[in-house]
């Protein structure tokens, strides 16, 4: 989907560029541009709804600018967002590149970009009853999860069954996911003998609700083209993070899971060394956001030439990150 993003004068990203992979886990201190990367993607989506600007705008040297390039079949097109100030990026320009395909297919690229979504899940919103019980997409806080689950069950029973199966595998204390569309909610049925015990959504743990929302995304037969997730590890036990990574890999590498659909580009942020540990074999999926003074930059962990040597000295990826030798840690006075 998005091949790279280059920033100029956008918030802390004064001069930064990052190549994006199908799956991207962004780590770094607070204020290092992780959320700005996600905001840039969302602004591109928002401006994609409008007609693109015909002529290059006159820009001041200090004008903020975000330049997007794309993967095939749209690698012949460049999109530039220009900002009047930090909060007003309202000009989208498109330009063909000397090489690559799809320079004349902005409508096709636009249609994909418009499906991009960003999530900062909220357990209370997820558990709240929702009406009506049909919805095309998961709300940014997960607030209409009950509707999404009911919709998935109605439109794609096979996908719902896959979601249910994966949920039970991740949370063996539960035996079933029970929908209650009449009340606009759902419940989880506890495992074990005796009378069935239903745990209503508002009594389910926060982490379980977050994972359930991720499962709803991962098992959606027509997921967004780009999914951005902030604080992926929030509320989730470290040992469950492997399962959470699997859920997201289902989005990014659908063929590995038997799905016939386009890969979803995932951009997720975390502060968890435990989650980072799981990417030792795939450092190309890790983006380190760093902040020096007021300026932030991005780097791919796989671009670090001595990474293997550092790991060979002992320490997990999470340990190395926490130690500071990989960068992506807060500055200290």
């Amino acid at each position, binding site marked *: 989907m998005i091949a790279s993003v280059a920033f100029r004068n956008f918030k802390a990203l004064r001069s930064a560029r990052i190549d994006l992979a199908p799956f991207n886990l962004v780590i770094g201190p607070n204020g290092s541009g992780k959320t700005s990367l996600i905001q840039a993607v969302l602004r591109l989506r928002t401006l994609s709804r409008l007609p693109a600007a015909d002529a290059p705008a006159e820009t001041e040297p200090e004008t903020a600018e975000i330049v997007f390039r794309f993967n095939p079949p749209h690698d012949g097109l460049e999109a530039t967002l220009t900002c009047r100030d930090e909060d007003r990026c309202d000009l989208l320009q498109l330009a063909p590149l000397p090489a690559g395909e799809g320079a004349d297919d902005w409508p096709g690229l636009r249609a994909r970009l418009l499906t991009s979504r960003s999530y900062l899940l909220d357990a209370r919103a997820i558990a709240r009853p929702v009406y009506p019980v049909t919805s095309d997409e998961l709300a940014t806080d997960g607030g209409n999860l009950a509707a999404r689950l009911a919709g998935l069950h109605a439109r794609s029973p096979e996908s719902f069954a896959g979601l249910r199966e994966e949920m039970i*595998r991740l949370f063996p204390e539960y035996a079933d996911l029970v929908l209650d569309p009449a009340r606009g909610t759902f419940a989880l049925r506890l495992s074990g003998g005796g009378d069935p015990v239903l745990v209503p959504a508002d009594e389910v743990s926060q982490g379980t609700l977050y994972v359930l929302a991720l499962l709803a995304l991962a098992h959606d037969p027509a997921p967004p083209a780009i999914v951005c997730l902030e604080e992926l590890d929030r509320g989730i036990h470290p040992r469950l993070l492997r399962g959470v990574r699997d859920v997201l*890999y289902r989005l990014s590498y659908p063929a*590995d899971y038997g799905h016939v659909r386009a890969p979803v580009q995932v951009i997720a942020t975390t502060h968890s060394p435990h989650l980072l*540990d799981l990417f*030792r*074999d*795939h450092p190309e999926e890790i983006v380190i956001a760093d902040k020096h003074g007021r300026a932030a930059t991005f780097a791919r962990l796989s671009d670090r030439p001595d990474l293997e040597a550092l*790991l060979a000295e002992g320490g*997990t990826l999470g340990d190395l990150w926490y130690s500071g030798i990989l960068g992506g840690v807060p500055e200290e006075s």
Partner: protein
Amino acid sequence: MNGRPPRLALLGESLVDESALAILVEAVLGRPFVQVQPGLRARGWPSVLQILPAVARHLHFNTDADALVVLVDADDTEPHGERHEAPGYFHPRCRLCQLRAVFRRATRNLPPARGRERMLRAVGLAVPAAEAWYLCGLDEAVGEAAWIAGREAGRPPYTRRELKARVYGTDRPNLAQAVAGATAAARRHARDPRRLEYDFPGFAALAADLRSWDIINR
């Protein structure tokens, strides 16, 4: 032992490895065992080394475990060789030697508890990763000798990612895929573990430890 099944605790770096390890241990012992405190887990190599003393102490005093079985990946460190078994030998880059030493230090001064003098241990080292064990007998190019020769030539014959791709069909297996692949391979080896012992001295060391437990095996 009074004929009761041995009570063993397993410690590894992942649920995947532990699932396969349980099958292999049972095959070498030739009898079922009871797993004490299922779900012990370490976060990768240094974590195993760091938590081993606490785990050993906890098992010794708070459980009736007869023994602790530990499995770690060698990654790019020194494989455990025959000369490492010489009395008093310790290779500082061999994880198996390191784990044995740490266990020895952690338990040598513990007083008897729970009706036993001491807890036994067995340690295995998968070179470079447990996925190599799972390919043993299926891929002639995979074995400790090939790994060592490749490292010495400066060209390791495969990477951890390549091993995963060969075992699971993807280098990003989900947990269920990985457990299924690992346990299927372990069951194949369980029918006759001799090939695994021959090709992987890091497994042979584990098997030798298990067979040396007179108090459990007699």
